[in-house]
């Protein structure tokens, strides 16, 4: 039936059929970066934001320094150990504000609901949004709800936007890392991604791990109180994991980074799941930790401040900023290798 014409282009990625959005474009890795830089930002034209891609945008209105951020949440399953899509949507946006030293002032929430969703599920997610917002001390000031036909969405998407007020005394930015900076990580990695993966059809496994979803703005406030302008850059390593976060900061700042693999806090079940699936914990998503690039003279003070808060109790030093070059990892046997941006989605390997 099908005869593959050997005269046809031999480079598959340039064929027109590839000119479609792939799941990997949403992975937070290289494909995501390409989608943003080659499709979305050029499309926006003059209305597009300038400068490096930040977790939140700085907007000055009448002398007030404000931060604005948005994220869409499409997690499957809606409910998982350690959280649900509603809490995630609050924490994610609160955290994106926090990564630029923003304290949350107000949230908006939009729901895209698939026809047929049990009302109890929607009520439960709304309650979780409310509880997470209350716990973070931020009101949900407005919202929107759309219902789409059966099969036109995967049950429920939650999209939040956040308005923040910038904490005085610091201005962390993705471009702020400098050679010599100490790289700090606020807690263990991989829990969120492994928790969600464990429910996937065909991968199904049980584990004792729960999502780390939590708000980090109070941790950031304490870090800035301790480190002031020495807190150069902050990022929450969500999609694409620690590898993507560190690569993004390094690229935006024009520096290199060297991490120490043995220093990365990877909980046992996360490591086990990653071994099983053949994926690297550094590429797995987190929703409740941050990576900080701090001036060396402030690093100890910041680390102490972090450890004084529950969400930073397990904070560790994981590496340092170098003059340039790629993000490197010192391996367990003492060699170095590049820790690159992931390409697309993490797929389980057989070998």
């Amino acid at each position, binding site marked *: *039936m*099908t*005869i*593959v*014409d*050997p005269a*046809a*282009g*031999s*480079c*598959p*990625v340039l*064929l027109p*059929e*590839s000119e*479609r*959005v*792939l*799941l*990997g474009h949403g992975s937070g890795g*290289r*494909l995501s970066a390409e989608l943003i830089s080659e499709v979305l930002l050029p499309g926006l034209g003059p209305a597009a934001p300038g400068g490096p891609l930040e977790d939140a945008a700085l907007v000055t209105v009448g002398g007030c320094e404000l931060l604005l951020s948005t994220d869409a949440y499409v997690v499957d399953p809606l409910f998982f150990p350690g959280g649900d899509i509603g809490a995630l949507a609050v924490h994610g946006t609160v955290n994106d504000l926090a990564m630029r030293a923003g304290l949350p002032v107000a949230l908006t929430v939009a729901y895209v609901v698939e026809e047929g969703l049990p009302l109890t599920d929607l009520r439960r997610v709304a309650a979780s949004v409310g509880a997470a917002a209350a716990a973070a001390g931020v009101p949900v000031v407005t919202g929107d709800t759309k219902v789409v036909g059966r099969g036109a969405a995967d049950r429920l998407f939650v999209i939040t936007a956040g308005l923040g007020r910038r904490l005085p005394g610091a201005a962390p930015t993705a471009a702020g890392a400098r050679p010599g900076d100490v790289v700090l990580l606020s807690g263990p990695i991989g829990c969120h991604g492994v928790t969600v993966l464990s429910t996937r*059809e*065909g*991968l*199904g496994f049980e584990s004792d791990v729960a999502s780390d979803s939590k708000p980090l703005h109070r941790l950031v406030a304490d870090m800035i109180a301790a480190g002031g302008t020495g807190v150069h850059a902050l990022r929450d390593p969500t999609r694409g994991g620690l590898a993507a976060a560190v690569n993004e900061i390094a690229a935006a700042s024009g520096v290199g980074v060297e991490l120490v693999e*043995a220093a990365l806090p990877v909980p*046992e079940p996360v*490591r*086990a799941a990653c*071994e099983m*699936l*053949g994926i690297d914990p550094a590429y797995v998503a987190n929703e409740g930790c941050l990576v900080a690039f701090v001036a060396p003279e402030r690093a100890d003070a910041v680390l102490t401040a972090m450890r004084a808060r529950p969400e930073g109790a397990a904070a560790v030093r994981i590496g340092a900023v170098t003059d340039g*070059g*790629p993000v*490197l990892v010192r*391996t*367990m*046997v*003492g*060699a*170095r*290798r*590049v820790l*690159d941006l992931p*390409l*697309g989605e993490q*797929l*389980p*390997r*057989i*070998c």
Partner: protein
Amino acid sequence: MRYLDEYRDPVLARALLSELGRVVTRPWTLMEVCGGQTHTIVRQGIDELLPDGVRMIHGPGCPVCVTPLEVLDRAMAIAQRPGTILTSFGDMLRVPGSRTDLLALRARGADVRVVYSPMDAVALARRTPDRQVVFLAVGFETTAPANAMAVLHAAALGLTNFTVLVSHVLVPPAMTAVLRAPDCRVQAFLAAGHVCAVMGWTEYEPIAAEHRVPIVVTGFEPLDLLEGILMAVRQLEQGRHEVENQYARAVRRDGNQAARQAISRVFRVTDRAWRGIGTIPGSGLTLTDEFAAFDARRRFDVGHLLVREHPDCVAGDILTGARTPLDCAAYGTACTPRTPLGAPMVSAEGTCAAYYTAGRRAVPPTGVS
């Protein structure tokens, strides 16, 4: 994790490296056959730490990389048929065929799904009786028992909507092919521990004897690999060429009898094309006539497929160890994981991709500083 963490101990790794340094007196070239071992070596930078002169070259042991273009194109032709669900291991989905890959096909509407185990594909067929579920069954001897069991179980359940597109390959014929290549530089092999867990190592004894190469059955952790290398180098230094077993905690001389029986019930040996290498006699498995009803090739007539590899790709030389990726003009320029020209750049355990991901390009990291 027990039986993993112990074999990652950095202190013992340094001890092994020191010992190796003391044993080596002249240059040796070793090949690890298995892509999983390549992955550990490159990811941990083990080869960077080896004493001068001890050189690892990476063998053809990545099932994803050696799956022929024709099989991929066939899988994609089947996936495009309405009512079909094509399943395979995650790492098969990104491998480019002649025109596209399974992930891109899925984006265009084909029902392509990742399974962790072939048994998951059988379960899927059971759950969706109105769909044809096809499992793209690739792999070496390690995976053959699992794929065999999927067919046996589907047969026991009487499923008529489950088939396998088999492209199984066998290691010993590939090792022989490497050794027979005119420019072969391999002086010793690390044999793949998990293949041997299934098959044992008796098949390797005539190879070691005939070609006078040491063969060390080796595990996958850093200490396993270092010890395997040390054992092979000791043999080389001592002029021996035996089959030794580094991976004794998991591998017995005769392998796994139950697994071997299942393989020989479901499959028979056949000639097989290896992507980038060509056909190697007796190097593959195909379904026996008893299980012909489960053969996706028979169930789905997608015609004769003509295929051609990219002319710049030297994958054959990479897979037989004749060259390293750094010897390929396309490596890192025209050919990257984003734009792979050949199979070894596609899967994480492909040699070219393993090199690229570890950053072996613009800024080659140096050894211990």
